[in-house]
């Protein structure tokens, strides 16, 4: 899976996206930093409410307004500061340079337009061209995502094609303007297993052909294991651990990552008992002042509850936010006896 990776294309530094609601300030993204190189695949893993989707929406400056605002940090795409751009300039970025695939193809396609028209719509915004050549581009786009008989399919409506096919069409729209960065937000959760495997393979082939930088947003460590080069684990708005994919699996260093990895059953071996994390994530409008995982962490002490840990380096490019790493500490796998 080791591919040659190119220059840094996207740099996110200390990103804070807050939602200002009636009930208080929801700190959806609270200090997330990462960088992404061309041809690289980054996985952002977390549970619902961990801030992974808000991070992705922030990159496109599509956070739900007026409630949500990017309050701090910087996002640089090939050196340009996206947060300094006007709305008009952002429109030239969305779809053209950073593009996104959403979870449910059922709702991301418009039911009253043919798939050809929807592809053309996306292409047209960035490439002014005659109708005939746009249709040709649309057919070309469908061919790229391996839709059979694309000449006939362009005239189909979304309800006439299957879920897997729809997600391919969404993919075709996303890559139609040759973006540099593609964000895939749980792109396969609504697909069946064998169709998911087809789709993941397709994404990888497209990536190899175009040197695309991919961001995979997922809750599934299986997708991370299969697709990603590097991983960020998010918990309650913070990136609690990040590093190369093998390091994360072999030496998970944040208790949350450890617990998550040992709470997933395996297909390849018998597990006597799964570790289960007690409790639930904290409410984002009422975060504890210390480590956000402290209330559920079996190792937490007083300091964890009062002071947010800084990031400790545990390997090359591998960091985790946990006070226990201050002293040299080899993480032990969780035993299943505590449930």
């Amino acid at each position, binding site marked *: 899976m080791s591919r040659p990776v190119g220059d840094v294309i996207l740099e996110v530094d200390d990103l804070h996206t807050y939602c200002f609601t009636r009930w208080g300030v929801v700190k959806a993204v609270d200090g997330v930093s990462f960088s992404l190189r061309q041809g690289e695949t980054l996985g952002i893993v977390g549970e619902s409410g961990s801030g992974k989707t808000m991070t992705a929406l922030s990159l496109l400056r599509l956070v739900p307004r007026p409630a949500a605002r990017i309050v701090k940090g910087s996002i640089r795409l090939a050196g340009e500061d996206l947060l300094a751009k006007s709305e008009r300039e952002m429109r030239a970025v969305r779809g053209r340079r950073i593009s996104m695939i959403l979870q449910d193809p059922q709702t991301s396609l418009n039911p009253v337009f043919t798939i050809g028209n929807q592809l053309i719509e996306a292409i047209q915004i960035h490439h002014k061209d005659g109708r005939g050549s746009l249709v040709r581009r649309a057919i070309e786009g469908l061919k790229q995502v391996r839709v059979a008989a694309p000449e006939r399919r362009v005239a189909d409506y979304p309800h006439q094609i299957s879920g897997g096919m729809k997600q391919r069409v969404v993919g075709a729209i996303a890559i139609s303007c040759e973006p540099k960065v593609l964000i895939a937000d749980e792109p396969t959760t609504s697909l069946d297993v*064998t169709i998911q495997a087809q789709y993941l393979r397709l994404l990888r082939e497209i990536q190899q052909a175009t040197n695309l930088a991919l961001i995979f947003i997922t809750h599934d460590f299986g997708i991370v*294991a299969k697709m990603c080069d590097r991983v960020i684990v998010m918990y309650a708005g913070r990136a609690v651990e990040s590093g190369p994919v093998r390091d994360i699996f072999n030496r998970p260093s944040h208790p949350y990552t450890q617990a998550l990895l040992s709470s*997933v059953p395996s*297909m390849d071996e018998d597990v006597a008992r799964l570790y*289960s994390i007690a409790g639930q994530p904290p409410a984002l409008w009422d975060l504890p002042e210390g480590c956000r995982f402290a209330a559920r962490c079996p190792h937490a002490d007083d300091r964890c509850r009062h002071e947010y840990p800084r990031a400790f380096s545990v390997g090359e490019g591998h960091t985790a936010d946990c006070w226990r790493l201050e002293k040299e500490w080899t993480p032990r796998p969780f035993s299943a006896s505590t449930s």
Partner: protein
Amino acid sequence: MDAAPVLRVDELTKHFPVTEGLLWTKVVGWVKAVDGIAFSVGQGQTLALVGESGCGKTTTAKLILRLERPTAGTVTVDGEDVHTLGGEALKQYRAKVQAVFQDPWSSLSPRMRVREIVAEPLVINGLASSHEIKERVAEILSAVGLRPQQADLYPHEFSGGQRQRIAVASALVSRPKLIVLDEPVSALDVSIRAQIMNLLVDLQRQYDVSFLLIAHHLATTRYMAHEVAVMYLGQIVEKAPTKELFTSPLHPYTKALFSAALPAHPDIAREEIILSGEVPSPINPPSGCRFHPRCPFAMRQCSETEPSPKEIAAGHMVACHLY
């Protein structure tokens, strides 16, 4: 599995008519959702049905729950054909067979208190006095890890995992013999799934109840089930004890399904069998073996004759001409 099985399904078939026209409808075809399947579940055992959408696993569950009537075949619970029941026997059946569904946000009534939701099977079937009901509800709530004081709250006051615990409590309160679990954890967050899976496994031991588990996540079935049946287009193509199936899958579809499953570690490299195309329509399923158009090992006889299930090892059935 020594005594008589709790659930027995024989030659179960469900065909839905495909109709045309509004007032003068005529039947133009049949969706063969379930087509002659057979299995049984012993007391305290879990059988998992796995397969992709459209394979008929949910229809099978509905047939067992009496939510659909079969076109042919029988469903036997505790020795009685559930589709011929009436009167008192039907009431007993309804206490004996319960279900937990995927989405605890839509399966619990928002207008009922937890106490009422959990007690409902007892109240409806007239199984206990009001005093007994109160005791049973308290007992079951603590068995699923909720506090008895929480009985007066409404479902919206709970998180997803807790709601699924309420659903499980409601399924358990009538002391059922069989619980149909339809994707019981797939709507929950990853860190909560393990809690619910462990809870279900514990409750099964404690109450000696049988589970029919419907899931598409293979690792979940490996963790929870004693036996797994793989369905494709309305038929069971392979069935075996869990460990046997996961270590030596035989049917080409099972192999493809397993190879498509996501690895638990980046170093696990599976032999990738990527199936071409999608599951064909169950309206006109392919002739012979239903899997033959997508099967990498298809031979000529596969398109002509339907393979009959063969027992390859103890309890390991496979329907494929290769064996």
